[in-house]
Every structure is written in C-alpha cells, then in structure tokens.
C-alpha cells in the first residue's frame, strides 16, 4: 500500500515534469504550427530548418562556443585558485572562499548588471569586443568549478606529494604528475557544470552581449515575443535535440562512473 502510493506519487511528478518536453518532441516531428493544432503529416521540416537557417545555426554555434570557451577559462582559473587556496594560510583561504561564494549566492540579474556597469559603463569596454560577455560568463562559472575541486583537495594524501619530492621530483613535477591527476574527476565535473551553467544563462548574457549576438536563451526569449512560426517550430526541434543530448550524456556519465566504482572495488 505504502509502496503503491510512493510509486503513484513519483509517477505523477515525473509525468508532469516530462509531459511538456515530450509533447513538444512529438510535435517537432510534424507539420503542425501549434500544439493542439491539426497534424496532417509527420515531417522533418523543423530539423532541416534548424540547420538551414543561418541565423539559428550561428546562434547555436555561438552559444556552444561561448559555453566551452568560458568554461575552459573558468576551469583553468578556478583549478589553480583551488590548489593555491588549499596550500594557503587559513585567513587567506577564508577570504578567497568568501569572495568565491559571492557569485554563488548572488542573483544572476545582479551579477550581470554589476559586471555590465563596471566594464561597459565605467571602463567603457565595448560590448562588441565580447570581453564583457566572456568575463561575465567566467564570473558565473568559475566559483562552481572551484567548489567542485575543493573536496577533492581535502581528500588528497599529502604524503604522496612529499614522497614525490623525496624521490627527486621538482615541486612543479610533483604538482602536475601527482596532485593534478588526483583532481581530475573534480576538474571534469566542474567543467561540465560550468558548461551547463553558461548554456543555461540568460541574465548575464543579456546585460553584456553585443547587440548582434544571441545565445539560445536570449534568442528563445526574443522569439516568443515575435510571431515567426517557422522559427518557433524549429525551436521545438532544438529543444528535442537538447533533451536527447542531455539524456545521452547523463547515461554515459553514469555508466562511466559505475565502471570506475566497479574497478576500485576489485
């Protein structure tokens, strides 16, 4: 009885969660121009439009490039930052931790607006240089990378580093060949997190982007205000593709981490 209730509850919540996404997915394969509208035939038109339309293609490409680029920058900065903080004095580390926490707790609107006021209004850096946009995205992502590396650093066995030095490694070698490899799971998951945060961002992008550049978020918001049906239905296709991609990535990551666990058990 209790188990039955649990299953029903989870089922309802899952259904409500996935219903909109799945309905859009079904409609993306038809020629209907609105949900609930008449379907006369199935069609891949939306998917073809998604890649034929220059504006859409550039927008997707730009979004991905921005996400990967700023995630890379954020990962490098935050990894060095986390390692440095780990070996710093307690007060220094505490200050860094607090500063790192600011963008985490801050609202994205405020982060975006403040970066915009400093860089674009006060310092006069042009939006068209993409510098404010990239800096904004690194500000958004880097703190989360930092937070995902810190626990790995705490688990480190410090003796390994000392042993490497005793065996003749230079400090730099010990750092890159002994410490860094052990941090890789944290760095990777931090990087993934950074990519998803950047992909999902709307506010920082709006306040810092060049007027001719759009990410998926800003493009979708503008598109919902307009009435271009072709773009609207092409976005259904995009949403379906992203959904499938996320499912695949999550499955692969979980299979990989399950394998890793199995290995360590043996």
């Amino acid at each position, binding site marked *: 009885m209790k188990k039955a209730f649990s299953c029903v509850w989870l089922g309802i919540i899952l259904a409500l*969660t996935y*219903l909109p996404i799945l309905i859009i997915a079904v409609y993306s394969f038809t020629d209907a121009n*609105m949900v609930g509208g008449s379907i006369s035939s199935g069609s891949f038109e939306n998917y073809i439009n998604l890649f034929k339309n220059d504006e859409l293609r550039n927008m997707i490409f730009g979004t991905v490039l921005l996400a990967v680029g700023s995630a890379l920058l954020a990962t490098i900065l935050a990894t060095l930052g*986390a390692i*440095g903080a780990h070996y710093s004095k307690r007060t220094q580390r505490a200050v860094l931790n607090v500063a*790192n926490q600011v963008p985490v707790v801050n609202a994205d609107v405020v982060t975006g607006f403040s970066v915009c006021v*400093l860089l674009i209004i*006060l310092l006069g850096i042009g939006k068209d240089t993409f510098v404010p946009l990239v800096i904004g995205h690194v*500000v958004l992502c880097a703190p989360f990378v930092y937070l995902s590396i810190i*626990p790995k650093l705490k688990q480190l066995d410090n003796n390994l580093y000392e042993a490497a030095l005793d065996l003749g490694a230079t400090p730099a070698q010990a750092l890159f060949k002994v410490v860094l490899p052990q941090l890789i799971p944290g760095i990777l998951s931090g990087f993934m997190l950074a990519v998803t945060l950047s992909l999902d961002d709307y506010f920082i992008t709006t306040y810092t982007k060049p007027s001719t550049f759009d990410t998926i978020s800003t493009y979708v918001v503008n598109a919902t205000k307009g009435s271009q049906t072709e773009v609207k239905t092409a976005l259904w296709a995009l949403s379906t593709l992203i959904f499938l991609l996320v499912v695949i990535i999550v499955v692969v990551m979980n299979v990989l981490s399950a394998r890793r666990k199995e290995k360590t058990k043996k």
Partner: protein
Amino acid sequence: MKLKLRFSRSQLCLPYAVFLILFVIAPLLVIIYYAFTNGQGKFTFDNFTNFFANSNTIGTLLYSLLLSLTTTVICLIIAYPTAYILARSGFKKQYVLLMLFILPMWINFTLRITALKEVLTVLEGNISLHPFLNSVIGMTYDFLPFMILPLYTSFLKLDKNLLEAASDLGANKFIVFLRVTLPLSVPGIVSGITMVLLPSMTNYVVLDMLYNSTYIMGSLIGSYFSAYDWHNGSMISLVLLIIIFIVTLVTNRFSDKDSDSRRTVL
C-alpha cells in the same frame, strides 16, 4: 627549502584572487557607488527614498515576495515527499530515479518554459488571464529540481539507527517523523529554500515568457537597464544584495557545511 616551496604553491591562487577582486568585488563596489549618486555624480539618497516612497515600487517588492514565497512553499510541498521516497523507499536503481528528476535542469530553461507555455495555452486558452497562477507554475517547473536535490542529500545522510531507536523507545511512526526525521532534514529544507526563494524573486524572464506583465524585483533591473538608468538599476541591485545577504546570514546558521549541493550532481 620547505617554506619556500609552500610559498610557491599558494601563489597559484593569485590569478584567481585577482580575477575575483576585479570582476566580483569591484563590480559590487561600483554598484554601491552608483546607487548613492545621481547623474551628475553627486552623493544622494534620492534613489532609495524614491524607491521606498513610491507605492508602485513597494508593490513590486511585495508582489515579488508573494510570488517567491508561494513558489517556494509549493516546491517544498512537492519536493519533500519526492525526495523522501527517492532516498528511503529502497527502490532498486535509486540513483537512476534521482537522475530522472534532476535531468530537466540541464535543458535550457527558456526552452522548457516555452514547452510549458504551449501546454498551458492548450489547457487554459488565453494564458494571460491567469498571470499569477502561471508564473507560480512556471517557476515551480523551473526550480523544482533545485529543491529536490538538497532534500535528497539530507535524507540520504539520515542515520537509520536513530529511527529504529525512536520506534524501539515507543514512538509511533508519526512521532518518529515529527521528532527525528523532520528536524534532521532541516539543513536540506533550508538549502532548498535558498535555492528557490532568491531566483524566484529575480527571474523575470519566466514572467515575460508567460505573459505576466506585472513587475518583480528582477524586472525593475531589466527595465532600468533598457532605460540606461544605471543609478536606479544599481539601487535595486543593492536592495536585492541586502535581501540576499540577510537570507544567507540566516540560512548559514542552519545549513551543514559539506552539503553545498547546488547544481552539483554530475
């Protein structure tokens, strides 16, 4: 030798420290400066007195609070039993199930809200007739995973022996829940609340996309940004910062240190 070595390792955090000072701390100082000056650069309290003396902006503040509190309570009501069942019902493949609930947060939120909007349009006809209801649904749809995750973590940590001890000592199931489970899940509740409360005060895109033309705090920043009014925009940012600061101070007392699980699943 050893001292010199530690010195060089801790220096690795310098680039990140500089980055945080330049692009996280400095923007906040600039915001404070702009909030207390007018267009001529003169010191003034006018931005604040205008905000707090104007019934429109106070209305916006109250509407934001009402909307975010409603969203938070509904998220909590849905997420609490969900997380409880996920963590404690002993389903096989518990982790896969959790993933199903968390997965939507990796799909771009504007695309998810678009999908939701299509479904709501079918259900309600003209969605602009139920602005508050739709905004609450939209925000709940957007933020639910962020509430489930910390709750799940806190239930997972719960020591089964404590529950058994309580029932051995004569407590019935309800009392066990009230006196043991509930208090021990408080860190999860608090961290879930912060994850939903603040974004739902500021994420005005959800309202825009669902045709709710009422302003929330975030919309004010957006409209001052479009009007190039940096001083009033900064003033609103500062008001939000103060709210965030207070919430963080309060919640820090409840949260336990190592469950900072915001968006960190992968």
